[in-house]
């Protein structure tokens, strides 16, 4: 057996498809391991489905590498932060501390949004005031925002901390007070009279980062210095970190979805999930199917009859509608999907394994073994099992892609496990948010490719396995 099997394996190794399949499998396994070690297991609930976590990201941004292919480069997403105090001096009753962030606008594009972020503000007596202004490349200044930190409650003791758990986030694009500031700025600087309401219409980003040009605005390239000033009453008051998010049009390796989620993370997390579903389903299906098939074929009689009838019925049920029905009723938990896929997967294997066992049973070398007095167990293990084992293994490999595809289909219908990001769910969310009709290809093409990639990996391996199952296909010297 062993030598025979090794010959089979070398045959397997000799085929190009199986080598390709194994290489792909290695890639999938490495990515899955990487993901499992670097991502928390509750990634889905803690981060992926938590919109606040993605608040700083641009929405529906293309992948960054798209800039390699276009002449007119898209603006990249930028988050700039600082914790260093640039200047500090007392002024009257206040201690003034400034923080500076320099942003160099190089692209011929406007940022899509600007968000200010303040982490970890500490004060000891009266709440400080924070003010942000920007000095543009043309040396003009715009006061962007000003606010007072929330005062202490009566129960609090100094030092008072603010914005520790969740940073203070100011979406400048949504601030009504800014429209007036910008309207005045345009009048002062360019003698352009635009109603504050219309400024909001044009977009603050264009005014802040641009200059009037013909009938609109064009980007003003150069260094922008964002200065944050803390007006503190106590010398110890300070801001932990000041950040400015310059919303870009491209983001990361795979872009973002409508919630600003980094798609590369979701895609990465899909690997271990797909591998898990594929392997768990195929292994369980194979164990059940092969066992029942061998029992049915070898024991025969009434047991065989019952197993066969059940298989007949199960095999004649259209799978997807029943899968839809069951996952719908029992809810989209990953383990439930696995159980259902296993439940409806095994009968096809039983039928084939049974017929193979019957065939093996009727071949005369089995009869020879019986005639020398070999026990049932010996015959099963030494003679019947080796005949069906390669086939069972091949079937196991073949079940894997169909499980991956079935889970993806269920996910796509909105029946997936919402606590775990999968490729099918990314696609479903994309589809439901019109990604297809609006041409957001980076949202819908990569997850599909991942599904095809992981499925075809196992198809290739299964194809390479064919000569192992069928010794007649082997090339003898």
């Amino acid at each position: 057996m062993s030598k025979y099997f090794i010959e089979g394996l070398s045959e397997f190794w000799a085929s190009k498809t199986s080598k390709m399949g194994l290489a792909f499998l290695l890639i999938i396994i490495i990515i899955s391991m990487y993901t499992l070690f670097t991502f928390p297991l509750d990634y889905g609930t803690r981060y992926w489905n938590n919109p606040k976590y993605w608040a700083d990201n641009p929405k529906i941004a293309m992948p960054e590498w798209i800039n390699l292919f276009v002449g007119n480069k898209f603006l990249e997403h930028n988050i700039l932060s600082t914790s260093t105090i640039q200047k500090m001096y007392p002024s009257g009753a206040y201690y003034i501390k400034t923080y500076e962030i320099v942003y160099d606008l190089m692209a011929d594009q406007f940022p899509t949004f600007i968000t200010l972020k303040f982490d970890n503000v500490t004060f000891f007596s009266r709440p400080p005031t924070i003010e942000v202004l920007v000095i543009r490349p043309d040396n003009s200044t715009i006061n962007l925002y000003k606010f007072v930190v929330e005062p202490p409650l009566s129960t609090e003791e100094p030092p008072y901390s603010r914005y520790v758990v969740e940073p203070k986030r100011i979406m400048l694009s949504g601030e009504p007070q800014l429209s007036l500031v910008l309207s005045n700025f345009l009048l002062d600087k360019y003698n352009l009279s635009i109603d504050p309401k219309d400024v909001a219409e044009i977009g603050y980003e264009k005014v802040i980062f641009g200059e009037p040009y013909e009938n609109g605005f064009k980007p003003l390239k150069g260094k922008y210095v964002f200065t944050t000033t803390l007006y503190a009453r106590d010398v110890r008051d300070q801001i932990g970190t000041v950040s400015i998010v310059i919303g870009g049009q491209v983001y990361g390796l795979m872009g973002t979805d409508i919630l600003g989620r980094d798609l590369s993370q979701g895609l990465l997390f899909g690997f271990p999930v797909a591998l898990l579903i594929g392997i768990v389903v195929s292994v369980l299906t194979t164990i059940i199917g092969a066992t029942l098939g061998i029992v049915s074929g070898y024991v025969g009689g009434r047991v065989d009859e019952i197993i066969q009838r059940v298989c007949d019925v199960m095999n004649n049920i259209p799978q997807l509608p029943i899968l839809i029905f069951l996952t719908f009723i029992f809810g989209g938990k990953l383990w439930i999907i696995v159980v259902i896929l296993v439940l409806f997967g095994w009968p096809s294997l039983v039928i084939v394994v049974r017929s193979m066992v019957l065939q093996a049973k009727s071949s005369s070398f089995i009869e020879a073994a019986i005639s020398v007095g070999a026990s049932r167990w010996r015959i099963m293990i030494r003679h019947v099992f080796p005949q069906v084992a390669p086939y069972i293994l091949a079937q196991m490999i073949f079940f894997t892609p169909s499980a991956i595809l079935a889970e993806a289909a269920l996910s796509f219908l909105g029946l997936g496990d919402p606590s775990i990001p999968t490729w099918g769910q990314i696609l479903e969310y994309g589809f439901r948010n019109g990604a297809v009709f609006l041409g957001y290809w980076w949202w819908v093409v990569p997850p599909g490719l991942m599904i095809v990639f992981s499925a075809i990996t196992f198809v290739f391996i299964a194809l390479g396995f064919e000569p192992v199952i069928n010794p007649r296909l082997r090339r003898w010297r």
Partner: protein
Amino acid sequence: MGLKRALTLKAASLVVVLLFVLLLTTIIIGATGISDKILNGMVQDNLRAIRQELAREIRNPEDLERALEKIKEDLIRSYGLDKPWYVRMPDMIWRIVTLDLGNSRTVVSFSGSNKISDIILERLPNTVLLMITVLIINFALSLMIGVRVATKPGSFLDRLISMYSAVSYALPTWWLGILMILVFAFYLKIFPFGGMYSTPPPVDPLVRSLDLVWHLCLPVLTLVIATSGSWIYITRSIVITTAQEDFVSIARAKGLSERIVLWRYIIRPAAPPILTNLILSLAAYLGGAILTETIFSWPGMGLLYFEAIMSVDEALILALTYMYTLIYVIARFVLEVLYVIVDPRVRYA
């Protein structure tokens, strides 16, 4: 005669399948309390209608409430809601069979009815149209290409087809549909994004049917690309095997032309095994059709499924599961009949 008996046996086993699915679904919805939910919904629907009617006759609100309470009890009794679910099971099965599942909460038929049977019957022809078109194209393709490839095993085209069938096995139909829309509808703009007719639909019958064909193109293309690979490959394998049979070389020895040999001695005897494989791939194909409808907003039962899931409409999902099983069983039976017709060995066995 054997023919009748063979078909009766097939029909019987398919009826068992149908019954099994019915039993399975009713037990599940019974045990999980969903059947209560559905029936309660029906009671409420009825009550609402009756309340409007009664309100015209009974002016006193208290009397009205009392009368309604009584009617409600009657309704609960008539729907069997006072009894446990397993007692109502036969009733429930009958309800599913007749699609008497009350009203959909969210979906309305094109003619405005929200009765489930109306909605489904309206969608059914659209689904059947899509499925049969693809079926015919697939069949023609697998015969044309499969036979062609089978005459040159090992050729470049042959290897291409093998590769294609492997890839199409790993290709989710619905994702392919998304790609198709992106390419042909979004970027190239030569086909519509989805639906069955343009809005507004053309009035002229000829234009209307052309419009339909135009809308049919992408979903059909998607399904064909995703499923024809395995069909062609199976046909090829069977034709190759058949072509090696002794009777084929005898037919050649008889001086028959290659055309007759091909059709009468290769394709004709290969028909039964090809049909068998067709029967086996029917289920996968049905699943593909459901998802394709969803992608292309094809107003058939598959899209309805999606809508029902999105709006958590249990009664509708139940009815659709039954309908799809029914379609599958009927399609199986039609193929079995065809099989018996093409294979004389079954007829006289």
